[in-house]
Structures are given as C-alpha cells and as structure tokens.
C-alpha cells in the first residue's frame, strides 16, 4: 500500500506512541499502525501502554494465538475492555462470557450463520449489492466507503438476519459511530442507551409477532441450561451482533477496494478469473484485518515474551501485527493472493472466533464479483486523500475512487444475470 494515500509521507513513524502510549482511538494509530508493525514485532512484541490505566499489547503471532485460545488464563469477562466501562453498559453474550456459558450461546446462534445457511441469502444479497452499485455506476466517481461499503452490511443485517425493515438504519448508524469511534465522547453513554432502547422495542415487537425461524426468535425462545434467556441477555446479544456486523464487513470491503485501486494487475486477474476471489480474500483479510485486535483480562499470573503478566492485568492482542509476523508468514509485507498456507487471525481464533465470518465472506465475495464485473478499471481519485478514523475497527472512512464502468454493466440492467458469467469462468 502506498502510504501517501492515507498520510503525509514526511511524517515520521511515532514508535514511542506504539511502544509506550498505544491507544487505538488516537489518529496516530489509524495513520501509522501498519508501518509501525515491523518495529513492534521486532523490538517490542510485548508492549506496555500507559493509556486507559495501563494495559499490555501483544504482537507476535504465536502469543496472540495462544492468548485467544487459552480462555482460562485470558478471560473475556467485560472487565477486559481497555475503555473504562460506562454506567449501565450491558454484558453482551457471548462475547463478554467465557466457556461453558459462552459455548451455549454459540450453539444457539451458530446454526443460523453456517456457510450452508447463509448461502440461501446469496440471491438477496446480490440484488442489494447491484442496487447500490446502480446508484453510482453512471457517475464515474464514488466515495465507496459512504456510498457502498457502509450501506450494505446494515441493510443485509436488518432485512435478512433480523427479519425487520431497515428504516431506522441512519439513526442506529450514528449511535454506533459514536460508540465505536468516539467512546470517550460524553455522548457515548446516551448513544448506547438510545441503541439499547431501540433493541428492546425491536425485541418486544418480535415477541408480539408471529414466530419466525430466525436468530432473533431462537434467542427469545431459547432454553439455556433450563432457563429462558433474560431480557437483558437478549438485548446484549443483539447489541454485539449489531456492533460486530455493521462496521467490520464495511471496513473490509473498503480495504480490499483500496488495495485493488492501486493494483491494476490484481483487478485484471480477479476480473478474468472470479473463481480466485474467495481465496484472494483470505490474503486481504491477513493484510488488513478489519478488527485490529481485542482485549482480554488475565486471570492468573503468567509470562509472555519475558514480561510478567499479573492476575487482573488487561492484555490487547494485536491481530494486525500477528498477521504480519515473519515467524508465521513468508514476506509478510507482500500482498500475495496466492499465499498458502494462510492461517491469518482476521476472524480471531479460539472459542470467540467471529460468529459472522461466513456472512462476511459471502458479502465480500459477492461485492467483489459485482464491483469488479461492473467496472473496467478503477483507481484512487487523483489529488484526493483516503482517510481512516481512529478506532479498534480498521478500514477507510473515505475512499474516493474514479472508475470506468464496464459495458457488461448494461447487460446487468436488462435482466441478465452477471453472476452466471462469474460462475462459468471459475
């Protein structure tokens, strides 16, 4: 990635920030993380940040993997968060729980998110994607982040997974923006309470309505170890499905398109052989994971990389760095869509593996098939600067692209099915 598309080339990398004052909500993090990673891995694989009351930052692939898999030592209890808890902040099952209770929630929800189950949504998702592309395809220019990437997952999540209309999306999106990107804003608590109120009303509507075979009803009528899921537990579960489902997929679509915009050779290769897209995606996921890392709280004294981690310490396991660790990946700084093996940690690892990974993969694949299929070429609009917002979430917030639409786009409008073409050549 050409660094100058996201920041001034003259800015020096602020390693002191990454080694001693690490904070995912500072702009330095958003602007410089990828360039700081080799130094973090090499010189400071277990860093100690003095922000948020102090926490560890672990970067090496082996230690990040071990940490996420060892849930007995590194708990997911809500005290794990590096951002101080807000009054009234709900526990969100299953992400704020440990096995075995965490596992019960996953058993309940996983069947709705398997590859086979989400495959039944493909036609609907493709229609949504095509509709979004049609809105800008004649313009020659687009802010892909705002006009495409950030619209799609929201629409998909509401209509297809929750079975409700998405008329409230704009206000929900604004609450989420504050919660996700600006957690120290005094308004964050109000936004969270507004979102919780909205979820409560949504669940009340669903309780009053006819029974549906979907995730929300599974939750509302679930029996976990002989007891119904409580109102607060159901609200917390829906909250994490929303928090996890909106921004991450959007960020990833934009990250892939940002790289492709600078690599005409890869655009060409994936256009002429769309069957490569699912495999190429894993390399993009390795290179630009949309969640830079997650925290845990240590439950028993242990040692990582020579540093003594104490019971009660919080540890941020930095997936972005693990995914570029030369101990696991040959030439980690090279984006190589043929890379194999590729055991990247973009979806996490261990019991909390991203519950929506199969939905994300489907959204990403179909988005790329259609975006590549309906353009002949695209690049970053000259004179424009791509922007990232500071957050644990990682992806372009502003992605100005200039493109030439493909003649095939016209074929899509007359009712033919462009996906058939993609399939044939795969």
């Amino acid at each position: 990635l050409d660094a100058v598309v996201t920041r001034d080339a003259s800015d020096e990398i602020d390693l002191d920030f990454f080694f001693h004052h690490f904070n995912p909500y500072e702009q330095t993090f958003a602007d410089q993380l990828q360039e700081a990673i080799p130094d973090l891995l090499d010189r400071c694989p277990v860093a100690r940040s003095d922000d948020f009351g102090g926490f560890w930052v672990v970067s090496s692939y082996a230690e990040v993997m071990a940490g996420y898999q060892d849930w007995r030592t590194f708990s997911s209890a809500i005290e794990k968060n590096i951002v101080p808890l807000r009054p009234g902040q709900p526990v969100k099952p299953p992400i704020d729980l440990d096995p075995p209770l965490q596992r019960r929630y996953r058993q309940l929800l996983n069947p709705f998110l398997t590859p086979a189950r989400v495959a039944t949504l493909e036609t609907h998702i493709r229609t949504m994607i095509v509709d979004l592309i049609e809105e800008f395809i004649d313009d020659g220019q687009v802010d892909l982040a705002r006009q495409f990437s950030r619209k799609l997952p929201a629409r998909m999540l509401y209509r297809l997974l929750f079975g409700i209309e998405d008329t409230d999306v704009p206000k929900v999106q604004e609450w989420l923006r504050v919660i996700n990107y600006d957690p120290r804003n005094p308004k964050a608590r109000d936004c969270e309470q507004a979102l919780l109120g909205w979820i409560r009303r949504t669940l009340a509507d669903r309780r009053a309505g006819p029974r549906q075979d979907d995730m929300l009803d599974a939750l509302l009528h679930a029996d976990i170890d002989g007891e119904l899921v409580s109102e607060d537990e159901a609200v917390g579960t829906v909250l994490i499905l929303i928090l996890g489902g909106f921004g991450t997929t959007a960020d990833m679509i934009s990250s892939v398109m940002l790289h492709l915009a600078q690599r005409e050779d890869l655009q060409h290769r994936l256009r002429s052989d769309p069957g490569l897209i699912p495999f190429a995606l894993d390399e993009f996921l390795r290179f630009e994971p949309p969640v830079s890392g997650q925290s845990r709280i240590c439950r028993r004294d242990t040692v990582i990389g020579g540093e003594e981690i104490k019971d009660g310490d919080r540890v941020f396991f930095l997936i972005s760095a693990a995914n570029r660790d030369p101990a696991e990946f040959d030439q980690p700084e090279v984006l190589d869509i043929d890379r194999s093996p590729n055991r990247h940690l973009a979806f996490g690892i261990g019991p909390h593996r991203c519950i929506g990974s199969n939905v994300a993969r489907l959204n990403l694949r179909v988005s790329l098939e259609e975006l590549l299929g309906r353009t002949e070429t695209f690049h970053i609009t000259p004179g424009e600067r791509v922007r990232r917002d500071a957050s644990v979430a990682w992806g372009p917030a502003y992605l100005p692209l200039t493109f030439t639409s493909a003649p095939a786009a016209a074929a899509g409008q007359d009712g033919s099915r462009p996906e058939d073409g993609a399939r044939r050549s795969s």
Partner: protein
Amino acid sequence: MKVFIDADKCQGHARCAQLAPEAFGLDNEGHGVVLSETVEESYESVVRNAVANCPERAIWIE
C-alpha cells in the same frame, strides 16, 4: 492416510470444507467433520492443504 478433526479445537472457521470439500463437511453448527476417515489417494494433497490452513491446528493426519 487417515484424517481426524479435534472437535474441541475446531471453532468453525470452515476453511477445510472450502479448500477440500472432497474430504470435509460441516455440521449443524458449521464445525468441520471428516467425511471419511480414510483418505482416497487422489484427495491426499487437498487434505494436506486443508491441514496446513486450519487456523486452530485442529486437523491431523496419520
């Protein structure tokens, strides 16, 4: 060659079923299952590829 999945380690990344659908399926939760413990010779290389790409290191061959 025989292939096995450690069900306690598998977390449902579904990479095995994507890379070697000849040898792996997914259960109701989307967790990997071995279709046939004994691997046909023609599938051995795709099975090795799936083993090498399992993030949880949950698959092994004997």
